[in-house]
């Protein structure tokens, strides 16, 4: 039937961090007007609003808000947190990205079960994801700031270099690595532009204007973890563990390339 059906989404598919950044599309290719019209009134703003409510609401078995959640810039502070993640957190002894850290707070402070949050991490057309809303809110609180991910702690440098190794690591029935699709300029899978992730300029655009980003084809905000999950799916690997060290290491590698990019979240993608 005509009206885009949910089941069609996997078929339309999504290779690694496809979906070129909206703001980069200034050339008049027939697509630009539509992208601008969507970006000007981004439905992702609805996720930001919901995320803000969820952040301050007393929730979970422990009836706590996230106002004591330390995202790396002090308890309850969302301002500027995204621009400095992933980073090392002494309390967990781990390098964590935004989602991994929110997961920690929702479990430790609010008493949610980890497996429940993981299960509902990606929203569907019938069920919103709290995580997607929270990430939209926290991400938006770095808007206007420059990405400035630290590599001060040795663990952060371990993750960065492991992320680099993993970016180039080929495996699976299609012999893919991230690098297969993301190390050259001007490449496309079908009509979908593929950013060159070894180019800091392109990475600044990819990271600082999404993810999180509202995806028109999925009618939802999607996060970096979802982006990596879908890449990994397209590479024919098993379900990528949510907030796994591998996913955080890749994010460390990519986000550090994006340092200096001005954050404007959530973004909009196809």
């Amino acid at each position: 039937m005509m009206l885009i059906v949910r089941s069609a989404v996997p078929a339309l598919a999504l290779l690694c961090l496809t979906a070129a950044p909206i703001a980069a599309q200034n050339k008049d290719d027939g697509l630009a007007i539509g992208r601008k019209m969507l970006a000007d009134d981004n439905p992702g703003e609805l996720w930001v609003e919901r995320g803000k409510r969820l952040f301050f609401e007393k929730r979970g078995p422990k009836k706590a808000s996230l106002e004591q959640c330390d995202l790396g810039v002090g308890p309850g502070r969302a301002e500027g947190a995204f621009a400095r993640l992933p980073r090392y957190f002494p309390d967990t002894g781990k390098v964590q990205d935004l989602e991994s850290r929110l997961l920690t707070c929702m479990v430790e402070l609010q008493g949610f079960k980890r497996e429940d949050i993981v299960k509902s991490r990606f929203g569907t057309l019938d069920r919103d994801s709290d995580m997607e809303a929270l990430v939209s809110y926290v991400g938006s609180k770095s808007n206007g700031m420059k990405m400035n991910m630290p590599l001060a702690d040795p663990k952060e440098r371990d993750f960065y270099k492991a992320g680099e190794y993993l970016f180039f690591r080929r495996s699976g029935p299609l012999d893919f690595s991230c690098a297969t699709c993301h190390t050259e300029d001007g490449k496309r899978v079908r009509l979908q532009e593929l950013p060159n992730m070894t180019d800091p300029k392109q990475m600044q655009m990819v990271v600082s204007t999404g993810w999180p980003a509202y995806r028109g084809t999925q009618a939802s905000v999607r996060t970096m973890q979802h982006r990596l999950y879908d890449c990994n799916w397209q590479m024919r690997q098993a379900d990528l563990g949510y907030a796994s060290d591998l996913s955080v290491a890749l994010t460390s590698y990519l986000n550090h390339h994006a340092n200096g990019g001005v954050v404007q979240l959530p973004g909009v993608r196809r």
Partner: protein
Amino acid sequence: MSEPMRIRATLQGDVADVRILMRHPMETGQRKDSKGEIIPVHFIQSVIVSHNGKQVLDAQWSQAVSRDPFLGLRVKGAKAGDKISVTWTDNKGDKRTDEATVAAAS
């Protein structure tokens, strides 16, 4: 329970530029759920926009309007501080009203 709309109203001269995002599934009645059952048609049929209590736009929609709908309009003769009120009603009879204040041009 429905989610609040996001209404932005900004003055450009004496015209208020009004941009409204609504949270609604806008189900077409064509989509199937994970069990293969058709999800009933469920969409916003009517949107009324008022400026200081006077109706300026009466929209009638079909299920072809996108999920999480957007509506942009312009209202002449507006001033900063004026009230913009938006009410949607869907085919199940659910409705929601939200308000915003016209902001001076930034």
